[in-house]
């Protein structure tokens, strides 16, 4: 194992900021900020649709505000081919809907709530993701 590109400070700070987004959404609206759940609900349910769409629009505006105010470019690189991207998108959609959560819903909110379901889910998707990277990387 070789450790590279490790950025603990910015990672931890970014995590704290995400944590604040989670608690504002929870204390204000009583909901968990699981992104797959919010996007799925915006797509298939009329309930809270405006709230969900506003959250999603905010999510897209976040990086724009960040770059505007800090003048720091966001490193961004996609090396996957288009067929891989499309297949991956479908699998993430299907998987998070069947498993009811993604990295934010299970990995952050669920673990913070000490939910056994979420802890198991997080361990499983980490393992299958690591195996996938090992096989195709």
């Amino acid at each position, binding site marked *: 194992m070789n450790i590279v590109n490790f950025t603990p400070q910015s990672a931890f700070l970014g995590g704290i900021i995400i944590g604040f987004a989670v608690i504002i959404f929870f204390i204000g609206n009583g909901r968990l900020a699981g992104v797959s759940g919010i996007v799925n609900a915006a797509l298939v349910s009329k309930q809270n649709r405006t709230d969900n769409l506003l959250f999603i629009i905010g999510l897209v505006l976040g990086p724009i505000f960040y770059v505007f105010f800090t003048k720091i470019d*966001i490193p961004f*690189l996609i090396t996957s081919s288009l067929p891989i991207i499309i297949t991956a998108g479908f699998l993430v959609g299907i998987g998070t809907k069947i*498993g009811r959560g993604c990295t934010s819903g299970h990995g952050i909110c669920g*673990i913070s709530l000490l939910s056994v379901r979420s802890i198991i889910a997080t361990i499983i998707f980490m393992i299958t993701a690591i195996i996938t990277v090992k096989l*195709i990387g």
Partner: protein
Amino acid sequence: MASKIVSFISGIIFGVGLSVSNMINPEKVLGFLDIFGLWDPSLIFVMMGAIIISAPAFFLFRSKNKPLFADNFTMPTLKSIDKNLIIGSSIFGVGWGMAGFCPGPAISSLALLNTYSVYFVLSLLGGFLLTEFVNRIIIRR
């Protein structure tokens, strides 16, 4: 109205957090998942940072009877470890490992105007719709 503002602000702050931590960058996430190669442990620190903030807040506010701008807390109803949790999470992990994108960062990265992000998000929505369609057929039987 207040709940709409809260949703919008929460989304913005979430997107800023993904930018600061660079989790919006699939290459960074794939670096984390490449444990057996050149490993970048940053993602663990993102999760720790978020959990350190949200866990105590959940603990303190969950017992309150009401959120500020809604009638009640909406919490997940399922408690047991079922087949769907295991199968779904496994499938999600495979997709996550293929491209390094999960839903939050993928949506946020639309801001960076990369066409591959758009294709990913459209496929993600396609995956949701496909699953919804299959679910409805199963329920109707």
